[in-house]
């Protein structure tokens, strides 16, 4: 039984909890046991909050026994990316500079998770400050892809994706600045959604690039993502960029999509996001998925987004510029690491520089230097300013494309998971991994990645769906329809094809 509980989707587990077949303590303990069994090998978690999770589970069980009206996901355990602040639970953002920091407050999305009674299993590994596409930039070691432990789980949210893929958690929280939810989803065979910018509160997310960051769900099924998205999303007065409107009905859209009728839906294939540089198996699975969508009644058309090729350039000006400023607060004065210079006078200025020199990893230093340079005297207009203009052009491309199509689609990532170290010394190759995901962040539109098969190397491939801003429901309708059709051809979920992990005890 214990083993089975971890294989359930969050929706199914929630149903078992509601029916009383299973208690939250049992479900939570099952996942904690699974973490104990496999996380030495996977290393998805930086911190496991056993006591906290079980306390929440016990509380939910007793409230349910008392007949209280509970949230549909009450009692379903969840893992939270370590970039999200959690009161009383260590939060490091994968960085040495925050080692041991215990926040005195909760992010808004964590408040909502706690209020709904989801036991928090722990904090998941990530590239330091979410900077990376492989989780190799974590200061606390690599997370391993459950499909092949020698390979990367994607990044920056490799920990959340791997936790879900390895059945260590049915639900996880990710954040996505240039693809950090969707790309790990693609390479681990899981589902990840980057909501519309402003759809989920950023209050309590340790910021990388404020105008690009978005938190979202990481799950094994489209419906689970919808359930979690509805829980964490919606207006938050503490985030000035939060959309002050109700979310569209996401769970309804997922349930409706699962029926498998996409007649009347126009699906736009972005011609700039395919072809050269895409692994053969990735392109083949993409084409098959298009056929499936067509078979469900969707019309497939080709659309062009000519400015997408400038997206990467704009991204690598905006992201480091904002990050260089957002990360200035890590200076050893108020919290976190403080390092004194090895010699010379101990002044605040020198302690700050020593702390940041030692506390930040290479990739973080690289981006801060890049961003500081881009904002430095005389460069602002040419750099950050120009990049903001490209944002406008990309938005216009999206506007034109969405005038022709209800959703846009592409492969999520050009390749399957690569081996550790393969691209570590080639930042540009690492960056190219995000080429299909970045435009959505620049324009603020929502995007989903769901697994759509295995490539020739036997590793999972992801299918990306993009929708207009505030039309996140379309992702769920199309995603659920495709997921159902794919699982029908596979005879079950893709993850069932993943090799069983060796259990450590």
């Amino acid at each position, binding site marked *: 039984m214990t083993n089975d509980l971890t294989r359930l989707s969050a929706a199914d587990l929630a149903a078992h909890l509601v029916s009383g077949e299973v208690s939250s303590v049992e479900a939570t303990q099952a996942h904690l046991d699974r973490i104990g069994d496999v996380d030495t090998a996977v290393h998805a978690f930086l911190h496991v909050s056993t006591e906290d999770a079980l306390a929440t589970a016990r509380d939910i069980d007793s409230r349910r026994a008392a007949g209280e009206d509970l949230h549909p996901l009450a009692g379903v355990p969840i893992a939270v990316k370590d970039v999200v602040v959690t009161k009383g639970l260590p939060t490091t953002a994968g960085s040495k500079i925050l080692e041991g920091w215990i926040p005195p407050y909760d992010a808004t999305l964590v408040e909502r998770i706690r209020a709904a009674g989801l036991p928090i299993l722990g904090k998941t590994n990530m590239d330091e400050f979410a900077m990376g596409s492989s989780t190799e930039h974590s200061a606390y070691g690599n997370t391993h892809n459950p499909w092949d432990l020698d390979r990367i789980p994607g990044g920056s949210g490799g920990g959340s994706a791997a936790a879900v893929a390895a059945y260590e958690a049915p639900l996880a929280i990710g954040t996505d600045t240039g693809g950090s939810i969707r790309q790990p989803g693609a390479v681990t065979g899981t589902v990840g959604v980057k909501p519309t910018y402003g759809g989920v509160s950023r209050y309590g997310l340790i910021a990388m690039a404020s105008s690009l960051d978005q938190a979202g769900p990481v799950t094994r099924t489209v419906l689970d993502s919808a359930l979690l998205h509805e829980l964490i999303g919606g207006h938050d007065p503490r985030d000035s960029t939060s959309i002050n409107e109700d979310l569209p009905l996401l769970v309804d859209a997922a349930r409706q999509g699962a029926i498998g009728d996409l007649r009347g839906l126009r699906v736009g294939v972005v011609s700039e996001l395919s072809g050269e540089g895409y692994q053969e198996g990735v392109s083949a699975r993409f084409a098959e998925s298009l056929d499936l969508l067509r078979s469900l009644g969707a019309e497939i058309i080709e659309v062009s987004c000519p400015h997408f090729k400038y997206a990467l350039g704009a991204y690598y000006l905006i992201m480091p510029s904002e990050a260089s400023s957002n990360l200035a607060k890590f200076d050893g004065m108020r919290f976190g690491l403080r390092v004194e210079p090895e010699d010379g006078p101990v002044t605040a200025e020198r302690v700050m520089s020593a702390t940041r020199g030692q506390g930040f990893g290479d990739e973080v230093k690289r981006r801060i230097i*890049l961003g500081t340079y881009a904002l430095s005297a005389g460069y602002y207009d040419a750099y950050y300013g*120009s990049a903001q203009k490209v944002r406008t052009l990309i938005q216009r491309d999206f506007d034109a494309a969405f005038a022709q199509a209800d959703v846009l689609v592409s492969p999520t990532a050009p390749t399957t998971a690569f081996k550790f170290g393969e691209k570590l010394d080639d930042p540009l190759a690492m960056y190219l991994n995000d080429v299909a995901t970045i435009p959505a962040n620049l324009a603020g539109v929502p995007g989903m990645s769901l697994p759509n098969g295995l490539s020739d190397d036997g590793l999972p491939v992801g299918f990306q769906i993009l929708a207009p801003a505030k039309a996140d429901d379309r992702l769920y309708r199309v995603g659920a329809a495709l997921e159902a059709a794919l699982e029908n051809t596979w005879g079950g979920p893709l993850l069932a094809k993943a090799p069983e992990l060796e259990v450590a005890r």
Partner: protein
Amino acid sequence: MSTISRDEVARVAVLARIDLRPEELDRLAGELDVIVDAIAQVSEVATPDVPATSHPLPLTNVFRDDVPVPPLPVEDVLAAAPASEDGRFSVPQILGEE
């Protein structure tokens, strides 16, 4: 050939308050070309007639009422401080004034 010199990287590192070792300066001087490429690419289309977009969704006038909320308890405020004294954060001596 790098277009951003090692000296330039060193200047920026001071601005960013990051001590870099000599080998880090060397490496970064080479890697920062990525930004030069980005500029070259972006400036192809970032013409004066294109307006800048700073926020994905255009919002204005997001204000808060002038109503206090309880502050953080002072023990929480100082809990993570590397050093503190008399309810305040203790920091090394400060040179210069802003």
